[in-house]
């Protein structure tokens, strides 16, 4: 199976607009027809139409959910920092919410990884004065064309590429908060980082953590199931019992939720590995329904069970 096939399989699993199911199934259905014309444009439009929900994490940290991956905003007298930026079309709404937090400048926008539902507004944030910060691989990935889930991505314009990059760790100090950025070896992609607000005890795990659902793994840019498990272990290692853990998708989580998610990944990996080691083909492995007992709990998100089994099989 080629990489392209794999991605197509994943995309088709949810009848062409699978990604949107994650956010607002009703919107997804309503807009399926336009998705066929220009899948990326349609996806952006669909996501941008999703309402923004905000959750106060502390008095200076807020989580925004809706038009893309979960965003965390830090604000204070020194300035503001956003982690992830939603999709194009949701910029104005996000900017308005940031503006409402005070007049301090937006100092930085951090990409947890290269995917468009997280980094799509890089250029707009740069134009608003922010320094774009990400792992060095994010620059590489944003400079390439990609086919992903039936969508075509041209290389991002230079202005949308991160300006400040790092390989292992990076830190920011502002608003009496210490912001620690660290690399996850290839997991969801090969560009994943975590962003830790150390004094507030908040961790943004990016798309290494889909809270309460099977995750998507982008094998085309280095993602793999064992990396996802290692990333979950890494997040568990750097977090504590009271840490608020922001997933890339899904509701705000904690260590317990992350532990359950990690255990699910291990269970699925072990079962699929067993099938694969026994010589089963991908098709046979999927047909064996190795996740049947887990699907009720985990299979209601973006990734359909069969597609997830395929992803796991193909990244082992």
């Amino acid at each position, binding site marked *: 199976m080629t990489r392209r096939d794999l991605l197509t399989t994943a995309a088709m699993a949810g009848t062409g607009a699978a990604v949107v199911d994650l956010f607002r199934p009703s919107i997804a259905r309503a807009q399926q027809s336009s998705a066929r014309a220009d899948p990326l444009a349609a996806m952006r439009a669909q996501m941008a139409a999703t309402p923004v929900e905000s959750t106060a994490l502390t008095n*200076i940290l807020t989580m925004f959910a809706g038009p893309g991956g979960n965003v965390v905003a830090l604000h*204070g*007298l020194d300035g503001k920092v956003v982690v992830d930026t939603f999709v194009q079309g949701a910029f104005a709404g996000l900017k308005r919410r940031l503006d409402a937090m005070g007049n301090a400048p937006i100092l930085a926008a951090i990409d947890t990884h290269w995917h468009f539902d997280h980094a799509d507004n890089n250029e707009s944030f740069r134009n608003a004065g922010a320094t774009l910060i990400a792992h060095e691989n994010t620059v590489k990935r944003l400079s390439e064309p990609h086919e992903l889930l039936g969508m075509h991505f041209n290389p991002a314009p230079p202005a949308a590429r991160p300006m400040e990059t790092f390989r292992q760790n990076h830190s920011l*100090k502002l608003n009496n908060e210490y912001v*620690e950025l660290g690399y996850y070896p290839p997991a969801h992609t090969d560009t994943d980082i975590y962003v830790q607000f*150390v004094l507030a005890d908040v961790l943004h795990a990016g798309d290494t953590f889909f809270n309460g659902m099977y995750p998507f793994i982008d094998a085309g840019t280095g993602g793999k199931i064992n990396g996802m498990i290692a990333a979950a272990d890494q997040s568990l290692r750097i977090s*504590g019992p009271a840490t608020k853990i922001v997933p890339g998708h899904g509701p705000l989580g904690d260590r317990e939720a992350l532990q359950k998610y990690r255990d699910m990944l291990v269970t699925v990996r072990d079962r699929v590995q067993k099938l694969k080691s026994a010589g089963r083909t991908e098709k046979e492995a999927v047909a064996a329904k190795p996740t049947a007992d887990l699907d009720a709990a985990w299979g209601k998100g973006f990734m359909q069970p069969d597609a997830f089994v395929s992803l796991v099989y193909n990244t082992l």
Partner: protein
Amino acid sequence: MTNASSSAAFPRREFLKAGGALLIGFAIAPEARAQPPQPELIPVDLAPGPGQPDPDRLDTWIAVHADNTATIFFGYVDLGQGIATSILQIAAEELDLGLDQVKTVRVETGSGPNQGNTGASSGINRGGPRIRLAAAEARQALLRMASTRLGAPVDRLTVSRGVVSVAANPAQSVTYGQLIGDRHFDVPYTGTAPIKDYRTYKIVGTSVPRVDMPDKASGAYAFMQHVRLPGMLHGRVVRPRGQGSYADGARVTNVDAASIRDIPGARVIRRGDFLGVMAPSEWSAVQAAQRLRVTWDLPAALPATSAELFERMRAAKTIDRKVLDRGDTTGAFAHAAHVASGRFDSPYQAHAPFAPSCAVADVKADSALVMCSSQGVYGVRPTIAALLKMPLEKVTVQFYQGAGSFGHACFNDAAQAAAVMSQEAGAPVRVQFMRWDEHGWDFYQPAHTADVKIAMDSNGKLLAYEYHGWHHTWSFTETTAQLAAGQPVAEGDGPRAQALTPFNVGDMYAIPNWRIVNHRVPGMKGYLKGGNLRSPLDVAISFGAEQVIDDLAYTANLDPYLFRRQNISDDRWLAVLDAVAKAANWTPRKAAANLSSARVVTGRGIGLGTHLSSYGAAVAEIEVDKQTGVIVAKRMYGALEAGQAINPGIIESQISGMMVQAASRVLKEEVKFSATNVSSVDWVSYPMLRFGESPEVTAIVVKRQDQRPTGAGEEALASGAAAIANAFFDATGVRLREHPMTPARVLSALKKA
């Protein structure tokens, strides 16, 4: 002195004459915005809540009077650190007024804005921006009025000392006072007015003299201890000499009221286990407190010594938090060329103000006025309202400066005691603590014990840094509330309550593998009442961690300054380190390279440290008498970078104070106790540095005028402690891993070496 002042002479009354009308009509923030106090959260510059003026109105912050002066309403208190002067500099600068044309007023609940407690160097750091923006906004509003009055566009107007003139025709002018004199602006505070470019500043950045000093020098200044009210009684608390285990409080088993029957007018107040005495004359109250026969039940719940305390903390079932875990620390230690490590112990330390706490309360049936030295009038108000069973809005708390604070007076035991006694007496009551109440019932800086391990490669580059610290956190229930109302004890449990952070543990160095583990000891039973003492935890941290850094420099055969230099990548840390080394005329050599057999030997040491966002570095030059074990800090150099320096002279004073306090805390200070209670209850049982023992200090302010102020009240203190510890090694070749570095410990360490 006791009868010298009356309330009529206080600055508050003067203010009421000048700008009293402005106090009327402050909008009260809507109830919906009320939030319970959450001390663990990262403080911001505002704390919205009921019973306080609306922060979103410009009139909450500034009033311009008919005499062309302005009053600045500021929510932070000047505890003697000089922030009132600095805040006036900021306001005058943006308003284009002279410093002699602006003043602040007493901070009080109800009329003053609530910007939270004055702590963690917040006054200028968090309080300044709001004042700067409000002043800029007021100036903008005044220029708009002037434009109409003078018939000239705003961009053709110039302002000097509150006189607005048409640039082309300076004779055409109007003053701020004429434009608005004592009327409300009646506009919202938006925070959007453009502020001046720092390069054009004329007042900010200059070392103008402090506005409070003339009155202090002449004796006209009214400190808290001077406050008297008509018909006032004098009160004293009656407690065991020295607190016991925090959760256990102290229980009264018997009070013999007859024991003070012969003291004229003296009476006993008892509410729960809270005991006090009151009398019309202060001396009678003092005598009554001395002579009242009370039997107390104090369980033997404390460890008997500091040494036992540290073992108890290490053995406790702690709440552990991995604060930071960067890279692979364990792996890096396994492969490092050199590893240095040590265990370090730091004792409980007291605030020990020169003058003991004092407060005056006047509690009536339906309202209460409490005057005290709290670092947060809005913080203490709900505790008093709860004690008096009175609605919050009926309680007014006013700030009066006391003698030193350093984090002491956030909840204000004395204010609570005065309130309870006044309610019982039905008359105003002044409570002043006796020395033993002050020393013995303080909120102490919690003791700390640490394991520090740091590794480097064969080139002297740091590879891994691991810090484990054990301590309990801060207590939130004051003794009066505990004893009088049976309020359950409480301590901070958030990630920021007395906890290790990357700022104070290792931030100065470039460290690829870095682990910080905070072992929080449940501190309510078997421990003392904990509180925040200037630069909380930081003295203990730098005392230990910076000695381990020095050990590595020694192992690498490198000068400790140059060793640090090669391991710093942050320009701001490098700048303070270089500044202090330059001021001290530091000539590179390996530490302990000049060991002498003389009785009195000298040494020099260098260290880094901070609390949050500022940068501190120090050099200490000390003498050690190897026969007596006495260490004398002869000279200290302290460098502090705190972003924009509003008043460099005031920051220099802060640095001087920090260096002296560092010497005192690391050489002398330790709260001692028995299994039942604290035994450090006066200056003999709690020795601290005397004037004659103070080091000569050179203070260096590293300015970053293009940056925001980051706080200058405490951040160089820890570096001073580290510098002294490292100087001791330089002088003797021996390390002391616990403080205070007393003669007994010095002699014992030298003997073992």
